[in-house]
């Protein structure tokens, strides 16, 4: 890498008043033609371009982004990373990502602040206990670390939780994945962008795609606000707007796009050093390095592209948070926002070829895409470069909705989707 970040570069630039740092990636005009184009400059899209260049030596490629990189769901999620999924296919997919996370800062020479603070999932009724114990066993059979904690152990691991038996949804235990945790979300987009750019990938921001041109069943290029760009391979990684792009290409996807909300509190001193999720009451919380509580709420029940979300959804989440953590009762919330998530009927992603030659989709991540960013990019790059899925994403093809071989993580995932 041209400008490697290190303690020496930090000292050198400190001595010159930090005025000589070079820009981390270029701002090129699009060429007329590329070997491959990725639509969507979020974490998944940038990671895809990074691995296309690095592992598959495709460097004459571009990422086109309608806004700025990392300005969509990459910057709107609650940054949780875990791999404790029930089914074998999901476990393989998410743990592949988790393993890449473990060495990502070193690989990218960019601190993504991956913090293995653990993720704990709470059980509030007998069915939760059964489901979570079953998931713990399934995880361990797949080589994924998971332990069951009883109520006392939950209290010991996170002392601020109200484990009193007389609350509306008492804590009957929980699971813990110690390798899980959080990372800094924009650093992931920036790190991948810098890495991809250094290998020659053109990252084209403020360039909206208005059409996908095809000749029969072969894709030919994209119409954008910066003109027509030719390419025989197009990978769409557009999250909530996947259906909009699919409609441009004349195909339909099994997706519904809905606002998912999150909110942060005023910053306070360290109070919670892990991530706690609760499926039954839909409340999950962690604390950012700035000291803000980061709280994830649910999705609205109807299709919407408004990036806002309904007030009652936030209210329900905060009600649950207050019962579980009475200590937060006087905290003020600073910001609330929504991101548009594309939800599949089986709550599992699609990393797949389509019926159109050269057109690939990576979508359907729904409410839980951030954790998969490195793995998703790696596997999608493999799928595009070889025109065949990797064995880890073979189950996540579009054809599963025809064959009926769904990966049903709806009730089985660690948190309600």
């Amino acid at each position, binding site marked *: 890498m041209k400008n490697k970040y290190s303690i020496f570069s930090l000292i050198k630039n400190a001595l010159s008043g930090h005025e000589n740092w070079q820009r981390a990636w270029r701002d090129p005009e699009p060429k007329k033609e590329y070997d491959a184009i990725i639509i969507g400059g979020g974490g998944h899209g940038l990671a895809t371009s990074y691995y296309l260049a690095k592992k598959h030596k495709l460097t004459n490629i571009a990422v086109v982004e309608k806004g700025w990189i990392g300005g969509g769901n990459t910057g709107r999620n609650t940054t949780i990373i875990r791999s404790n999924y029930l089914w074998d296919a999901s476990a393989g997919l998410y743990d592949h990502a988790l393993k890449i996370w473990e060495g990502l800062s070193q690989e990218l020479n960019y601190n993504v602040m991956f913090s293995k603070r653990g993720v704990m999932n709470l059980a509030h009724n007998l069915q939760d206990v059964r489901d979570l114990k079953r998931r713990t066993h399934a995880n361990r059979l797949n080589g994924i670390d998971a332990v069951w904690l009883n109520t006392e152990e939950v209290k010991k691991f996170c002392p601020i939780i109200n484990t009193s038996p007389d609350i509306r949804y008492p804590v009957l235990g929980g699971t813990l994945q110690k390798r899980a945790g959080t990372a800094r979300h924009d650093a992931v987009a920036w790190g991948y962008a810098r890495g991809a750019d250094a290998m020659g990938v053109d990252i084209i921001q403020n360039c909206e795609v208005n059409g996908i041109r095809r000749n029969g069943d072969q894709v030919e290029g994209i119409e954008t606000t910066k003109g027509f760009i030719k390419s025989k391979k197009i990978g769409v990684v557009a999250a909530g707007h996947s*259906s909009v792009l699919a409609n441009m290409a004349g195909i*339909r*996807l099994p*997706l519904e796009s809905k606002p998912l909300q999150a909110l942060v509190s005023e910053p306070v001193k360290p109070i919670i050093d892990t991530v706690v999720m609760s499926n039954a009451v839909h409340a999950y919380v962690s604390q950012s390095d700035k000291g803000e509580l980061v709280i994830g709420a649910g999705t609205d029940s109807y299709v*919407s592209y408004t990036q806002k979300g*309904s007030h009652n959804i936030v209210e329900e989440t905060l009600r649950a948070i207050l019962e579980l953590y009475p200590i937060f009762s006087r905290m003020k919330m600073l910001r609330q926002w929504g991101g548009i998530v594309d939800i599949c*009927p089986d709550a599992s992603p699609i990393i797949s070829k389509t019926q159109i030659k050269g057109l690939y989709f990576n979508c359907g991540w729904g409410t839980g895409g951030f954790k998969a960013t490195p793995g998703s990019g790696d596997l999608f790059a493999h799928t595009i470069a070889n025109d065949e899925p990797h064995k880890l994403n073979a189950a996540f093809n579009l054809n599963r909705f025809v064959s009926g071989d769904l990966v049903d993580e709806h009730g089985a995932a660690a948190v309600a989707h």
Partner: protein
Amino acid sequence: MFIINCPYCGERDQTEFSCGGEAHIERPKQPTELSDDQWAEYLFMRKNIKGVQFERWNHAHGCRKWFNMVRDTSNDKIQAVYKMGEKPPVK
């Protein structure tokens, strides 16, 4: 979050309603003759439009009746509400 004008009860808060997804998807008349592709199309594939979309809604915490709605999903503005069985208003 918005106000919905239920064709039976009048204006009520959206939280009283539940959304039943895309409207005017007809149940196959002869299910036994459908191919796997046609089943997938009927069961799973959705338009998921950013813009004006036709939807089914149910007044779940009210009269519990189903009805149709024309709504712009890019700004949540409702353009029309009409009863089940009625023809959708031409946009």
